[in-house]
């Protein structure tokens, strides 16, 4: 085998190349659109090939950039976890690009919209793939910047308000991450995550390394919108352009989940029991708060944003159980939630584009869906998937989570997840009734044309297909969970024997 395979670089390089190419074509929007579609499609293909190669080897593929050996250069580590998450984000990003190109929003025609969208994809994949803590900071900052600028471009006049709120909080998160980088560098003299994991295990009790842990934890909590740190999220998702909010609520919030997994299984393995207990409590709190808040709001996009808080809660609770099947279940849940939530947000946005007053508020959206039966069918399928009803992918992930919880002997928290799942059904059916069941109120009009439905249709088909044939996805998640159980394997893969 090639000692320094370039393959892990491709999912990051494809969107960056697309970004540069589309910046060269600022005057021709059609060219930009083609470039964006081609770049995300190529990125998805590269991610698929990468995952299949990682699957066939059963271990990590490591690219040492520039050929510099591990602790000195920057490594890109495509271990099963990273390859899995990269495939997830590239797939959703491809759907997002398809949606953006078929969107009627004015901001999509802005010459910097599509380049920034590709920057978001590059930052996300880079953050998942990098094996270096400082590079993780750089890539996550790229994600934040791209996301905020895209939101402030929004057709909605309140875009800058939401962008400012998000930017302050996530700038704080990035500052924490940077501080933690500095502290870990002082304590252990390295920023390579494999090297760091090895040294943290070898000499525990360094005071500065202990201080870095809460900083990293808080930073990932803000990135994932875990409940006490979620205040930016609902505003942000209500006003950002649909294609962008679908990405932010599905794949970008998974950045923090990824961070938690690395903290627990690579960096601070010794502190894992404390962190797991904390994650379990945070997850349950998020499920209660997110579920109730989603029922109480009157805006379709806001309902889905609050729903993300609850679903992230399920993922954190499963990570908190910490057993291998629970981690695999959390990964399957992560993947499926990304597809489902992106599809639902796109459908909500597509309906908003058809409403008389362009808004996702229920008062403006009531009955708009009656003229678009296709969207109704897709929303129903997606909504049932979100609630975990068979035969959708949501059922598979929910079943795996509950099964692993009961297997791990966590009867109380697993039953709590099962019961709180009923809240999902409440807000999904409520939203469906308002959008697709109730007739248009007198005097209100719906536009005959709006955003294209191709992208959410693709995602929903994928969700149903995973629901019918879940074996492949579950197998990959199980491989990733097995891999996570052995931190030494990551260290050996990056640093060599």
């Amino acid at each position, binding site marked *: 085998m090639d000692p320094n395979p370039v393959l892990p670089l491709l999912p990051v390089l494809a969107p960056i190349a697309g970004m540069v190419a589309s910046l060269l074509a600022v005057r021709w929007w059609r060219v930009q659109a083609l470039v964006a579609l081609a770049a995300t499609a190529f990125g998805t293909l590269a991610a698929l090939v990468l995952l299949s190669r990682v699957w066939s080897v059963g271990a990590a593929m490591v690219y040492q950039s520039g050929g510099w050996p591990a602790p000195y250069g920057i490594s890109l580590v495509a271990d099963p976890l990273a390859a899995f998450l990269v495939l997830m984000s590239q797939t959703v990003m491809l759907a997002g690009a398809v949606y953006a190109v078929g969107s009627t929003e004015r901001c999509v025609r802005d010459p910097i919209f599509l380049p920034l969208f590709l920057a978001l994809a590059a930052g996300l994949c880079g953050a998942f793939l990098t094996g270096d803590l400082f590079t993780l900071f750089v890539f996550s900052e790229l994600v934040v910047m791209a996301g905020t600028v895209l939101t402030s471009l929004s057709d909605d006049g309140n875009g800058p308000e939401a962008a400012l709120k998000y*930017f302050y909080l996530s700038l704080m998160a990035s500052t924490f991450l940077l501080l933690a980088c*500095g502290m870990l560098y002082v304590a252990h003299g390295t920023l390579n995550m494999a090297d760091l994991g090895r040294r943290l295990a070898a000499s525990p009790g360094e005071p500065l390394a202990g201080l870095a842990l809460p900083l990293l934890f808080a930073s990932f909590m803000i990135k994932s919108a875990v409940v006490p740190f979620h205040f930016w999220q609902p505003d942000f998702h209500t006003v950002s352009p649909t294609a962008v909010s679908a990405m932010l609520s599905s794949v970008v919030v998974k950045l923090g989940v990824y961070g938690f997994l690395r903290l627990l299984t690579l960096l601070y393995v010794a502190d894992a029991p404390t962190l797991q207990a904390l994650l379990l409590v945070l997850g349950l709190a998020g499920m209660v708060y997110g579920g109730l808040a989603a029922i109480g709001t*009157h805006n379709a996009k806001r309902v889905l944003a609050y729903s993300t808080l609850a679903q992230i809660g399920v993922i954190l609770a499963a990570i908190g159980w910490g057993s291998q099947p629970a981690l695999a279940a959390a990964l399957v849940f992560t993947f499926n939630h990304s597809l489902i939530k992106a599809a639902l947000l796109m459908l909500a946005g597509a309906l908003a584009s058809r409403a008389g007053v362009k808004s996702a508020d229920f008062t403006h959206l009531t009955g708009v869906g009656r003229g678009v039966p296709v969207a109704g069918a897709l929303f129903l399928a997606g909504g049932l998937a979100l609630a975990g009803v068979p035969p959708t992918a949501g059922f598979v992930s929910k079943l795996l989570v509950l099964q692993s919880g009961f297997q791990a002997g966590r009867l109380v928290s697993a039953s709590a997840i099962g019961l709180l799942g009923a809240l999902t059904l409440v807000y999904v059916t409520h939203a469906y009734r308002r959008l697709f069941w109730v007739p248009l109120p007198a005097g209100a009009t719906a536009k005959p044309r709006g955003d294209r439905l191709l992208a959410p249709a693709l995602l929903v088909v994928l969700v149903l297909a995973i629901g019918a044939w879940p074996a492949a996805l579950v197998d990959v998640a199980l491989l990733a969970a097995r891999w996570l159980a052995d931190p030494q394997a990551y260290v050996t893969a990056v640093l060599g024997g």
Partner: protein
Amino acid sequence: MSLLTAIAVGAMFGIGLFQMLRPNVVRSAIGIVLVLNAVNLFLLSAGAYQGEIAAYDTTSTRARSDALPQALVLTAIVIGMGGFAFVLAMVTLLSARYHTSSIDDIDRLKG
């Protein structure tokens, strides 16, 4: 010397954080710069007190300084500058749209 740097960095971080929490958006933008620069100084001081000569000097056998924190700080400065420029642009836009400089009055998104 290192104690003095530590106190200075801590004070700068504290002042920045205090400014950041003020209701005036311009003040809080200045607070962001102070916090970012305090973190940059912290990173810089991580490599400041080891070694006596520059990292690229191979002629001498004396202890060479660690160049990595400086490389990190350069990247962080660029990112921080971009972020600050963006915040200022955002503040300009917001004060034009909402006719206020108080963060408490920028509250159209609720629910």
